[in-house]
């Protein structure tokens, strides 16, 4: 029997192997694929955002360019004189306003001194002096100019487009005011996810549009990282308190900068793109968690599955290992028992052979002894010893020798029956007849012991296929045992035969001294006997058991000490080849 330790470690090893083999691919897949997927997804998301922002960048740029070109066309198409005609200008304004509602606020011509000499619009800005204005100073320097957004007289934000024209030695500007609201909505439209929004700043970091969500802290300091806004940003930027981590800089030709700001409790993605040839910057920001919400959700799900999966694997591994090892343990036990049985059987076989050898050998000396005794008896008949007193004693003694010789013969006979391997021939036998035969043989004995014999034999008992002599042996043995058990005090011996299903059943019941529990367990063992030395060999019941078993039947016994014993013989009617 293997120690408990062996099975425990076997269970443990099995569990570990299953776990390792199951976990490894799981972890590898989860890890590798998870990593690749996540990386790729992030890239895709960023790419997508880039494209979105780029699209809007282009939209905004084209809006601005478009408006600029209208003014350019206007300035190129008409002469100074025409444009300085107020009603003409007004007409042109109306056309523009009809075509693009809410965009053009007013039109004006400003001379090189900064005076607006022609004006079309709702405000009273004719002859306004812009010579001191920042925008004028810039505008007069360039062929065209777009200003930053600023609050005007009415405190509404707008910006100015101006186009410069030459007229002889002097220059004049044709300018238009663009309403902020319409423009702002373009940028406001950029709304992605929960927290994604965009706004425009100039190179000094001043807002040009109204952001929809709260600005990320210090996001404008990022301008210093862009190639187009570096200068302006450097002047006004505050030192960056939180860490800023650049993820990548796109190189799609439009020039962009993107990265992730890590602030206390949230990471923010930013994308910066130049507008208005770099004077403005389109800033897009979104919470990282928001942008990558899909993947975060996927990750959570995967983690949950992974955890439960691992838990399930561990539990199942443990359970199965224990079950399997339990089976192994049982099988090992059975194997050991069977080994023992095999050894026992081997021993019995050897004993059998030994016994057979002895039996054969004993026959010869016994035969001689018996014959010699007989010879002495023969001689005794002749001799004049007839008158001697001892003659009777001689005769009795010689008879005894013969008797004992016969007994030896019977003993070896039984021994050799037990050891025999060959199958005797089967005939169709009527069990009732066999029983009656034996009873008649034992009649003397039973009468002598005052035993009443009662039979209840089923007259329709079917024939069975068996060896007649073997059956005789069985019933002889059982009936003799019953007679011995009852003893000389008298009692009852009952024999019943009947059919039970597909079997012939014979019950042999006696009112003898019964069999105790510990004897009962060994009663069919060869060489086991409760009879005193010299009276029994202990082979009878084991032989009977063997014979009945060979026929495919069974031999069982019930007993109560002091009350009696019943042996049940059952033999199948249709013998299966066993």
């Amino acid at each position, binding site marked *: 029997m293997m120690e408990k330790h062996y099975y425990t470690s076997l269970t443990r090893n099995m569990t570990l192997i299953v776990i390792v083999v199951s976990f490894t691919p799981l972890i590898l897949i989860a890890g590798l694929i998870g990593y690749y997927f996540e990386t790729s997804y992030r890239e895709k998301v960023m790419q997508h955002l880039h494209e979105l922002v780029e699209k809007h960048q282009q939209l905004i740029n084209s809006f601005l360019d478009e408006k600029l070109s209208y003014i350019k066309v206007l300035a190129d198409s008409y002469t100074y004189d025409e444009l300085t005609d107020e009603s003409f200008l007004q007409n042109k304004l109306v056309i523009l306003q009809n075509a693009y509602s809410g965009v053009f606020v007013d039109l004006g011509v400003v001379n090189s001194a900064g005076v607006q000499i022609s004006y079309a619009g709702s405000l009273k800005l004719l002859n306004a002096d812009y010579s001191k204005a920042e925008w004028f100073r810039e505008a007069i320097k360039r062929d065209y100019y777009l200003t930053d957004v600023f609050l005007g007289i009415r405190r509404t934000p707008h910006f100015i487009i101006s186009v410069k024209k030459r007229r002889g030695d002097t220059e004049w500007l044709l300018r238009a005011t663009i309403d902020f609201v319409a423009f702002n909505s373009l940028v406001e439209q950029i709304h992605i996810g929960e927290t994604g929004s965009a706004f425009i700043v100039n190179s000094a970091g001043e807002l040009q549009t109204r952001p929809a969500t709260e600005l990320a802290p210090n996001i404008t300091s990022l301008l210093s990282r862009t190639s187009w806004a570096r200068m302006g940003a450097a002047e006004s930027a505050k030192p960056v308190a939180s860490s800023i981590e650049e993820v990548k800089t796109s190189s799609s030709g439009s020039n962009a900068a993107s990265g992730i700001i890590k602030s206390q409790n949230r990471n923010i993605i930013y994308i910066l793109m130049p507008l208005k040839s770099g004077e403005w910057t389109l800033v897009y920001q979104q919470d990282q968690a928001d942008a990558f919400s899909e993947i975060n959700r996927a990750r959570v799900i995967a983690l949950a599955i992974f955890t439960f999966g691992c838990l399930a694997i561990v539990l199942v591994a443990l359970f199965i290992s224990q079950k399997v090892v339990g089976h192994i343990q049982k099988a090992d036990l059975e194997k050991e028992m069977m080994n023992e049985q095999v050894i026992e059987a081997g021993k019995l076989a050897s004993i059998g052979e030994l016994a057979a050898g002895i039996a054969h050998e004993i*026959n010869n000396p016994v035969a001689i002894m018996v014959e010699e005794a007989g*010879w002495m008896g023969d001689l005794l008949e002749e001799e004049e010893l007839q008158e001697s007193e001892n003659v009777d004693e001689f005769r009795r003694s010689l008879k005894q020798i013969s008797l004992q010789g016969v007994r030896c013969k019977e003993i070896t006979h039984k021994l050799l029956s037990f050891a025999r391997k060959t199958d005797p021939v089967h005939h169709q036998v009527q069990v009732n007849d066999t029983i009656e035969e034996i009873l008649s043989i034992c009649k003397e004995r039973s009468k002598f012991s005052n035993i009443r014999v009662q039979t209840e034999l089923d007259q329709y008992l079917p024939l069975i296929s068996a060896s007649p002599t073997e059956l005789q042996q069985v019933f002889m043995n059982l009936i003799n045992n019953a007679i011995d058990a009852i003893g000389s005090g008298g009692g009852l011996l009952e024999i019943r035969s009947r059919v039970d299903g597909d079997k012939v059943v014979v019950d042999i019941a006696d009112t003898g001294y019964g069999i105790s529990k510990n004897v009962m367990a060994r009663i069919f063992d060869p060489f086991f006997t409760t009879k005193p030395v010299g009276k029994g060999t202990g082979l009878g019941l084991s032989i009977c058991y063997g014979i009945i078993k060979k026929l495919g039947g069974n031999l069982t016994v019930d007993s109560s000490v002091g009350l009696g014993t019943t042996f049940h013989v059952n033999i199948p009617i249709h013998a299966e080849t066993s």
Partner: protein
Amino acid sequence: MPPGDPINPEQDQSKVTKLLLVDDEEGYVSVLAKRLSKRNFQVKTALSGSEAIRILRNESFDLAVLDLKMEDMDGIEVLKIFKVMEPQMPVIILTGHGSETAAREGMEYGAFDYLVKPCDLSELVVRIRQACAKGV
């Protein structure tokens, strides 16, 4: 005295049955010969198959009693030879217990009858008389 086994000198003097006993167990065959002689048989003994065959070449017998299990020759072989040499001579074979197959084999090869050793002398005498009566 068991019946059928009279030590009876009143036998038919003209016909004394001649027996050949073949058995390699000397103790057995000698006492058996003595007892049979007492019962008015003329007995010759052989302690081996080859000795029996030698004797049979020179003499004839009314019956042979042959032990099947002998050391020098297989009893069945001896039986076959007997049947070739003296087909009319009945043979009674003696077998050890458990050798029913040998006994049956012997019967097939022409033995008159078989007895299991150790055998009852009166039984043997009865068989011998049966065999000789048949022969006559």
